[in-house]
Structure formats: C-alpha cells, structure tokens
C-alpha cells in the first residue's frame, strides 16, 4: 500500500487511509475545524493521487474506524457480498472512477457493484470526481422503493410536503398541507416536524394527517419526524404511522448521541410491519447530512464526507423508502458557503446511489452561513439533473418551525416543469382528478388552498 507520492518536485507522505481520505476532500470548513483537512492545495492533490492508486482491498482491510469497536462499521461489513467484493478487490480507486463513468458500465452492473463496496471506497471515488462527473454517474442510477406508493420511477420526481407550524397548531399545519398539495407537493410523504416531542402530541398530528389523506383519498404516506422512541410509543398506543422516521449518523458514537441503536431500529421496523398503516416493505424515512458527527464530537478524526458515506452504509441495512440528505442544515462551521453546500449535495446524492439507496436531497442553508437562495436553487437544479428521487416542499421556502430554508412548493413545481418530470403515478392521477394538473402541467387551480373547502 503506497501512501506517499511526489508531485511538482515535492514529496508528500500520509500515515493512513483515514488521512488520505481527509486530505483528498474538497475544502470544507468542518474538516478544517477538526484539523484534518489538507494544509495546501497541492497537498490536497497529492492525497488525491495517492487515493487514486489505492486498491479496494486496501480499504477493505483498513476501515477508518475498527469493526470491533464501532457498530456502523460492523453493519457495513456484515452486509458486504464477499463474492462481488472479490471480483473487484484489485481495482484501484482511480480505475473504479473510470469504470463507473464508462459508457459500457450499465445501471445493472453498478447495481451489482454496490453490493461489494464498503462506504469508504465510495467516499474515496467521489473525491476523484468533479461536478459533472458526479452528475453523470448519479444519473445512471435510480433506485425504487415502495411504501404506500412507488418512488423512484424514471421520469418522476416526488416531494415531501413539510407543513410545520411553530407550536404544532393543527389548523396551521393543515393549511400549509393544503397549499402544498395544491402545488403537487406531498407525493413522497406528508411529513411534519413536531415542536413538542411527546407521544400524545405526535399522535394528534399523525391522526390528523391520516384522516385528511383518508378523506381526500390521497395516495401517499404520513410521518411525524419525532425521535423514533416517541414514534414507537405513539404507534404502540394505536397512532396511524405509514412511515417511520429517524436521523442517522456515520459512527456509533454519533448514533448514540442521537439516541439510536440497532436494536431500536430493528424493533421499530418489526412494529411497523405489525402495526403500521402502510403496505411496505420500505417503511423507513432516514435523514442524514455531512457535519453531524463533527458537531457532536463523534467523528473519530474522519472527514465529514466519509462519515456521510458510512451513514448510507448503515441506513442501507433497513431498506428505507427514502433517505434525505440535509447537508447545509447545521451551519458555517461545517459547510461554510454555497459552494461547499452544493459540492456536499452532489457528493451525497452520488454516494447514496452507490449504496443502492432511494436518495433525495434537501439543498438547505441556514441564516448564519454564507449562502443564499441562489445557491440553493443551483443545488436543486443540479441534483434534479443528477436524478434525485425527491425534495422537501416548504411554504415559500421558509420553515417557520425549524428556522432554515429549504426548497419551496414553487421550487417543487419548477423543478418538475423545467425537466419535464411528473409526480409519482398514483399521485398524478389524484392531482388530475382534483383538477390540479393536466398533461403534467399545473392548472389554474394550483396554489389555491381553499379548493379543499
């Protein structure tokens, strides 16, 4: 395993794969904050050179966090198909990049490949890719999943309607929901972030959204994004849950900080299969994002992008219906500006798909970071071109409960229209029946919440 290289008459030495991965990352403030980023632009390039010549087996044999001490590493390794891994093990990361981008490598071959890679290999190859590389590669892969409806069909783009209210006022949530639905947002899920994380409060919102879906015959799924333990409690008390939510991290320590263990997730899955309202088999909605581990002091000196990739390796175990990437939600200490946020979104979409996941993207920014609406829209367009399955839908792009910006109902409709994409098939029929859509275009009625009067 060669960990040194010579470029422009200087020699660069690296101590470990972990260091190579960190220094080969595109510049991000979170990696700088934890003191693991490349010190100079040439050192970054030297790390990329070393990375390009490492073989997959070097990665397999040297996980960045040991199998014995970290649950995430264990879950990732236990899910690797060794026969497929052995087929590719002598390939270098540079060759892997070429293989992924090659015209002769089809979706089916990539799909097979995903079963034999560890998350660190996937993170590594993304570090050798540019914006267009990431878009071209991501475009090749599209993964489907089924809860109450089918997500991920080619030519379709879905949205989570996110009708949050600062005090969980049912009437307020309902109005935002109606507005969102009238724009065609809500086919991925009707998902409310609760302000009060108690089983009673969460049950109330679950009942309300469930009853509304029932009354208007809306083909979708409902979800309240409380902590999984609260949702389990609500479900045990009989609340109607179609999709179970949880935030995940890329290390055991990170997940412990989130109050998540494998046992809880397994139990949640089991309970959903017995008592959830949805068809399944995909009943989980996970959220992830670069920077959560470093914010929680749970990063083990591993770079943010690699930890994000590991989160996907962990998430994959439960075959989720949707994995939403929310890089940009934390702040400037992890992703400084729009450029870093856009880069993270593209990496994450690619890496998620390389894990075989039905990925969506939330190109978000907070008000204390150096990014604005223009950056968010660029990220939205790029990742739609790259074939994301879904985005969030927030009234006017302004989440009045979580205090950050995300894609708006207007952006949802725009992303579909500019690329000729349709809502999920059952939902499109529903919109047509409601007189909200004709031939894939919004009608005059769209955007009017009072049509539900």
């Amino acid at each position: 395993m060669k960990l040194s290289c010579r470029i422009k008459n200087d020699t660069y030495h690296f101590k470990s794969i972990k260091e190579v991965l960190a220094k080969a990352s595109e510049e991000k403030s979170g990696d700088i904050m934890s003191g693991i980023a490349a010190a100079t632009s040439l050192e970054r390039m030297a790390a990329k050179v070393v990375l390009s010549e490492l073989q997959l087996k070097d990665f397999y044999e040297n996980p960045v966090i040991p199998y014995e001490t970290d649950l995430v590493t264990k879950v990732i390794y236990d899910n690797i198909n060794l026969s497929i891994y052995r087929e590719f093990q002598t390939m270098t990361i540079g060759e892997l990049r070429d293989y992924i981008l090659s015209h002769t490598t089809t979706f089916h071959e990539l799909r097979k490949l995903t079963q034999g890679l560890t998350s660190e290999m996937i993170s590594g190859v993304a570090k050798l890719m540019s914006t267009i590389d990431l878009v071209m590669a991501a475009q090749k892969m599209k993964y489907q999943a089924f809860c109450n409806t089918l997500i991920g069909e080619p030519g379709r783009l879905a949205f989570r309607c996110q009708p949050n209210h600062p005090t969980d006022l049912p009437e307020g949530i309902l109005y935002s929901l109606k507005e969102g639905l009238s724009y065609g947002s809500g086919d991925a899920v009707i998902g409310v972030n609760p302000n009060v994380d108690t089983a009673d409060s969460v049950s109330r919102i679950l009942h309300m959204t469930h009853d509304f879906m029932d009354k208007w015959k809306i083909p979708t799924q409902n979800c309240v994004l409380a902590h999984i333990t609260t949702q389990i409690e609500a479900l045990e008390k009989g609340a109607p849950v179609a999709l179970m939510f949880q935030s995940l991290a890329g290390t055991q320590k990170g997940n412990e900080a989130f109050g998540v263990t494998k046992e809880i997730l397994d139990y949640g899955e089991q309970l959903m299969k017995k008592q959830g309202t949805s068809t399944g088999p995909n009943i989980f909605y996970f959220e992830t994002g670069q920077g959560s581990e470093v914010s929680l002091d749970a990063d083990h000196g591993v770079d943010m992008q690699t930890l994000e990739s590991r989160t996907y390796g962990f998430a994959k175990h439960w075959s989720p219906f949707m994995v939403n990437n929310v890089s940009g939600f934390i702040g400037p200490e992890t992703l400084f500006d729009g450029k870093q946020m856009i880069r993270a979104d593209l990496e994450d979409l690619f890496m998620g798909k390389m894990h075989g996941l039905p990925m969506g993207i939330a190109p978000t920014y907070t008000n204390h970071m150096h990014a604005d609406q223009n950056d968010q829209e660029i990220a939205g367009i790029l990742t739609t071109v790259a074939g994301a399955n879904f985005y969030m839908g927030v009234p006017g792009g302004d989440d009045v409960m979580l205090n950050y910006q995300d894609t708006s109902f207007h952006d949802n409709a725009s992303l579909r229209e500019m690329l000729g994409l349709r809502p999920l098939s059952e939902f499109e029929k529903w919109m047509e029946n409601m007189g909200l859509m004709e031939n894939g275009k919004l009608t005059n009625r769209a955007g009017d919440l009072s049509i539900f009067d």
Partner: protein
Amino acid sequence: MNQTEITKIVNEVLQELNKTKASNENKEGVPLKKTDSAADIIDFTEQAEMAVDEPKNKDTIQHAQKITPARIGIGRSGTRMKTKSYLQFRIDHAAAQDAVLKDVEPDMIKELNLPVLQTKAEDMETYLMDLEAGRTLNDESIRWLKENGEKGKQIQIIICDGLSSTAVESNTRDLLPAIVQGLSLKGITYAKPLFVKRSRVWVQDHVAKIVDSDIVISLIGERPGLATAESLSAYMVYRPGEHTVEADRTVISNIHKGGLSPVEAGAHLADLLEQMLQYKASGVQLVKHRNKK
C-alpha cells in the same frame, strides 16, 4: 392591451424610476425613517398578502394567513413566486443574516443584573467557525466563577446569546422572572443566573462542573429564522459528565411571542426542572422514567 395602455404604463414606470432615483440621490444611500414623510418613499409592506389569482374562497386563505406565519396564500407567477413575496423573502433573509452578527444590548444585561462570562471565542468569526471555542469558558471567567459563583444549588440558570442576541433581548425579561418565581414556589434552590457571551449549548457542561449544581439550564438564542429572529431555546441537563450525549439533554424550543410565550414557557420549565430533580435525569432518560410511572 392596446398601444395607448402600454404607453401609459411605460410612462408611469419611468416616472416611478425617476422618483426613486431622485430620492436616492438626495439621501445618498442613508436609510430613511418613516417620519421623513413624502410620497416619494416606497413603504414596502412586510405583511403577507392574499395573492392567489381567482381563489375559490378568498376568506379561507386570509384566515389561513392569520393562523400560521408560514408563507402561504402567496400565489404564483407560472411556477415561481410573485415579485412582492420574492422580495419579502429576500428582505427577511437579509435581516436574519444581519441579526447573527449583533451583540446583546449591554443595557439589558445591566438591568437584569447579570454577571457576564466569556467563552474562548474571542470574536464572532471564531465563534461561528470553531464549536469548541464556544463550549469552553475562558480562563478569566473560570477564575471568576470559581471565586464568585454560587455552588451546590439545585439549579444554575445561564443565559447564552447563541446565534441570536435578538432572541435573548426579547424574551429574557419575561422568561427569567417566570422561571425563578416557579422555582421559588416549589422550594427549589437556584444560583444567581449568569450571562455567557458567544456561547454554545455545551458550555453548560463546563459551568456545571464548576458550580456543582444538579441541573444547568441554558436559555440560548436559536439561529434566526426568516419569520422571526426572536426564537429562544431552553436546554437542560442533569449532572453532565464524560458519558453525557446529546440525547441526554431536554430541550424546549421556539420560545418567543409567536411561539411558546416566554411567561408560559417559564412555568412549564419550572415544572420540567422539578421532574428532572425528582427522577435525577434529563433527556431520553427522563422520558424513560416518566413512561415507567
């Protein structure tokens, strides 16, 4: 639209442009006060307007806009936002960005008689980019707290600017007395509240170690949103130590006049603190204990 109408509109627009230009030249970019009078000044509305074209029921939409601060009922141009709501959104974002960089009014700190501690974040840039700096008191504050802090009380309240000084300014005057009153009624002992400048949530662990209280409660400014920069959170932790994780903290967020009102929050927090003392736990652990009951 015929030619005459178009000409009329063009003339009107040109007149408006000239007016704006003239007023800009006169004032040389100085922000105008509302009292500066004159019809020349655009008084741009901050109110959401019912802007849906030909709605089925206008009253419903107007009612909805009163119920939630969410940006609904704003209509559309094609699939895009209308000009006015787009500009309102960008204005609110600009205001929120500016709010992050402000310091808390020294007057308020004086009025509430709060001792001021500082973290290792010496400037805003360090504070925003280095989490560790905002989680640790600086040497001088450590010394001060060791000498002057009230030790061994059940509760230590700290007020933290966090990411919004505006949130601290607009809630503390009501919230702090409400909590203190609640604690007194319950016979719970508390140390003199402190203000910690440029601080993150985890600074409470550092403070807890020094003052040796059962619980530290941080009242901290949340990152400013577009709808409000006034939102405050309360983070509470029972006897934090090496093994404390994020899920061990109890959080009540969205404390502001448009969310959970500060007075109401104060009473609620006092109840929660009492429960934490009773179960000797916070966060997920507290929930587990409560569920067993």
